[in-house]
């Protein structure tokens, strides 16, 4: 190549590079305007970035143009096409256990269950407690015990799945929190050391069980929420581990970054939760929402229906919470709704406080819903935000990550403890009720 052509080539190369970049920034964001708006909601701490703001404006403008020219039909179809492609098939799906096997398993499990009830200190104590009230003589004891256990098993069989499964869960739960146990405890020197690890308790299946059955005896937990429950938020995986440690549980977690109840055009939790219930058949759901909800409420198409801060915003938002709680109630699922913790930013903290109030009020309307406040858990002694909190030994540990919103592993563990305690408390209450009920039946 002669000198001249080399220079010409260089000149062209620079121009071509510039032209390509100009075309990229005109064509690609126009084409991908929907994705840009979604991504924009996820970017944090880029407030000084005039380029991102410009891209967002351009994307909004592109969306408007698409609507006006009717191009949006094409783009929507195209978007659905790609969504379908990305929704990949699932393999290794386990087959449901055939019914015949179920019955056999049930009988075996009832036998095992009675054995365990006999051995278990807490049931023994409950029985003794009941005996104390009845003041029966020694001979009657053995007979009564047999009666009690068989009746317990019968009662259990007729109960809903949740109450039955309680017994699977009881041991670890009671270990966490036996102060709330109202049953009088005798000092029995020969206390058995809890359940065997692989216990198979009597858990007859109710009609909730569908195609996906992981473990017939297990209590199914579902954890859902926003970035706190997704990886990196610091709570979801810690709760998941804690629930797994209860033993004989199945846990599924579904956290979606930047999601909430405000923007169903980005992610529609109200319909997603129905799909998840159908898919996972949970008995207990642990929920945390709201960190992205301090914004205008939109409908599924993205039209604003209530501006943030107004009275209509609160009532509409409460309706969305109600809708979720309704679905859970219909499906006989107990919901533990974790409130949001105190935040570093004062204004944001105020928003979060309001949201917590809505969750708490709505949960109170439902018998199956329990609100767990995490506000105090992650505040310091004076009730203010603090990145460092004391652990059980009094050592300062970092509880919050640098954004002043999400949690470190330690912060997550603090909140998880709060959630576990609440679950234990509720399960204990249910157990006490069940025992009293059984005792009443036996005494008649």
């Amino acid at each position, binding site marked *: 190549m002669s000198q001249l052509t080399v220079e010409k080539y*260089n000149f*062209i*190369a*620079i121009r*071509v*590079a*510039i*032209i*390509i*970049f*100009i*075309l*990229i*920034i005109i*064509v*690609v*964001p126009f*084409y*991908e305007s929907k*994705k*840009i708006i*979604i*991504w924009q909601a*996820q*970017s944090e*701490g*880029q407030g*000084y*970035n005039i*380029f*991102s703001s*410009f*891209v967002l404006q351009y994307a909004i403008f592109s969306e408007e143009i698409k609507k006006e020219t009717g191009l949006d039909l094409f783009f929507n179809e195209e978007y659905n096409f*790609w969504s379908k492609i*990305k929704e*990949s*098939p*699932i*393999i*290794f*799906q*386990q087959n449901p256990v055939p019914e015949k096997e179920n019955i056999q398993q049930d009988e075996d499990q009832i036998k095992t269950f009675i054995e365990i009830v006999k051995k278990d200190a807490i049931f023994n104590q409950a029985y003794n407690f009941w005996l104390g009230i009845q003041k029966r003589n020694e001979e009657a004891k053995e007979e009564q015990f047999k009666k009690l256990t068989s009746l317990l098993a019968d009662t259990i069989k007729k109960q809903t799945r949740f109450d039955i499964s309680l017994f699977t869960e009881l041991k670890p739960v009671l270990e966490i929190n036996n102060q709330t146990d109202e049953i009088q405890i005798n000092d029995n020197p020969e206390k058995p050391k809890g359940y065997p690890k692989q216990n198979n308790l009597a858990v007859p299946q109710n009609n909730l069980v569908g195609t*996906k059955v*992981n473990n017939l005896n297990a209590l199914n937990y579902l954890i859902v929420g926003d970035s706190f429950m997704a*990886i*990196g938020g610091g709570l979801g*995986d810690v709760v*998941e*581990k804690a629930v*797994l440690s209860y033993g004989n549980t199945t*846990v599924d977690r579904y956290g979606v*970054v*930047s999601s909430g109840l405000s923007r169903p055009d980005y992610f529609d939790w109200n319909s997603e939760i129905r799909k998840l219930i159908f898919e996972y058949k949970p008995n207990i759901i642990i929920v945390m929402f709201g960190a992205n909800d301090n914004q205008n409420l939109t409908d599924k198409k993205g039209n604003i229906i209530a501006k943030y801060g107004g009275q209509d915003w609160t009532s509409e938002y409460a309706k969305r919470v109600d809708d979720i709680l309704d679905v859970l109630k219909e499906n006989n699922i107990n919901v533990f709704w974790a409130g949001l913790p105190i935040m570093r930013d004062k204004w944001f903290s105020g928003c979060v406080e309001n949201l917590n109030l809505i969750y708490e009020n709505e949960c109170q309307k439902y018998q199956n819903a329990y609100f767990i406040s995490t506000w105090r858990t992650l505040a310091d002694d004076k009730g203010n935000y603090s*990145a*460092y909190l004391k652990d059980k030994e009094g*050592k*300062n540990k*970092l509880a919050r990550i*640098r954004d002043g919103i999400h949690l470190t*592993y330690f912060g997550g563990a603090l909140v998880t403890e709060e959630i576990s305690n609440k679950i234990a408390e509720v399960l204990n209450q249910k157990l006490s009720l069940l025992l009293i009920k059984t005792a009443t039946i036996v005494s008649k």
Partner: protein
Amino acid sequence: MLFPTFGFFYFFAVVIILNWFFKKWPFFWRLFLVIASYYFYFVWDFRFLFILVGVSIFNFFSSLAIFRNFFGRKKFFLYLSVIVNLSVLVLFKYYEFFRASFESLFFGIGLPINFPLLEIILPVGLSFYILRVISYNADVYSGKITEMPLFLDVLLYVAFFPQLLAGPIMRAPEFLAQLKDGGSKKIDNLWESFTYIILGLFKKIVISSYLVLNITDDVFSVPQNHSRLVVLLAVFAYSVVIYFDFSAYSDMSIGFAGLLGFKSPLNFDRPYLSQNLQDFWRRWHITLSSWFRDYVYIPLGGNKKGPLGKYINLIIVMVLAGLWHGASINFIIWGLLNGLGLVAVHIYYDYKKRKNLYKTENNNLIKKFFCWLTTFIFISFAWIFFRSNTVGDAFVLIKTIFNPLKTAEPIQLYVILMTLVGFLFFIFEKQIFQGFKFIQEKMPIFLTVIFIIFIVILIFKMSPDTIPSFIYFGF
């Protein structure tokens, strides 16, 4: 700003126009690039910028002191600069780790001392630019830099935005030479640069992001909730993820710098095709391993202190490299594992050398395959410690692999597909790259332009709705 965002593309469009516009005036061109780089960094957090500027100014003066041999004490100034730079790194990166460790230690011996609680944020890219400035001072000291660079040149060397956040860790002599007389007046490899950018985009936002969101994040945080097959898949998927994530960043960095007329060093050379661990470390994160070789391993004595000295040095270097990634025991274990692996390889080759067995070596295909497989499995195994949040988690994960109770669980077909695509990409990366470049070169320019835009749209189409941050931004 992240490379694979539209905000960055807008930013870069402005930069590339002004970069070539200012070329005629070298001073303004440098000034412009410094301002652009500072803006790029400022967007993350304005506080970070003060640290970056502070470090740059300090190192300009320290290098000046070394270069001019102030008071005849250039060695003193070299040590001073290393100590100050390392202190900045330690303060921001390791303070919390040391605070907690020392408090426990003092508490253990009956001295309840409390260090101040500082909510320190690690400035993004700090680990990378601290290494750059240390090597810069050392190069001035050793005479590799023969001419004292201008103030603006030093600022630009530390902050050059394509390489600021996650490397490649370019050496000062190499970089400063490219600034002379207003730098290159042309784009040397136009299509190669675009190929780097496009393949980088694809690696990051299609393969790596998809696998992170759909398997590795979940499995590595709660391994006990997964079946052994899925955990095993996640371990190999993570090998794909970390390579694709990091090499994608390096590729894009090389591409963007190339379009501004800069030549960057290669950071990855198909590392997963290595036949042994020594080979792997020559091909993986090349600029970091060569940095550690030149500024830690060789000053420690390298291989000149007998075989035992060499082995100890290797382990020290690998543990330090592990610690560089983060203040936690898992990174130390990861470094140690790699160090021990390297020592094993060295012992083997030293033995061969002594016995003069090189000539009789037969390199048949089966042996090659076996070497490759062992190396790859070892590397993937070591990544478990690298990725797990705690050492406990790592062991739980390893235990889960051998748990006979849970064998299979529902899994998306796409995840397996993406992992396989990842593996194919490792093997044929060079061919894919060349093919891509070839297409662009041979097509008429206007078709190439359309082709590039089409590919970029396609990549964004295939991306998930969330793009996780780059793994190496955390270091």
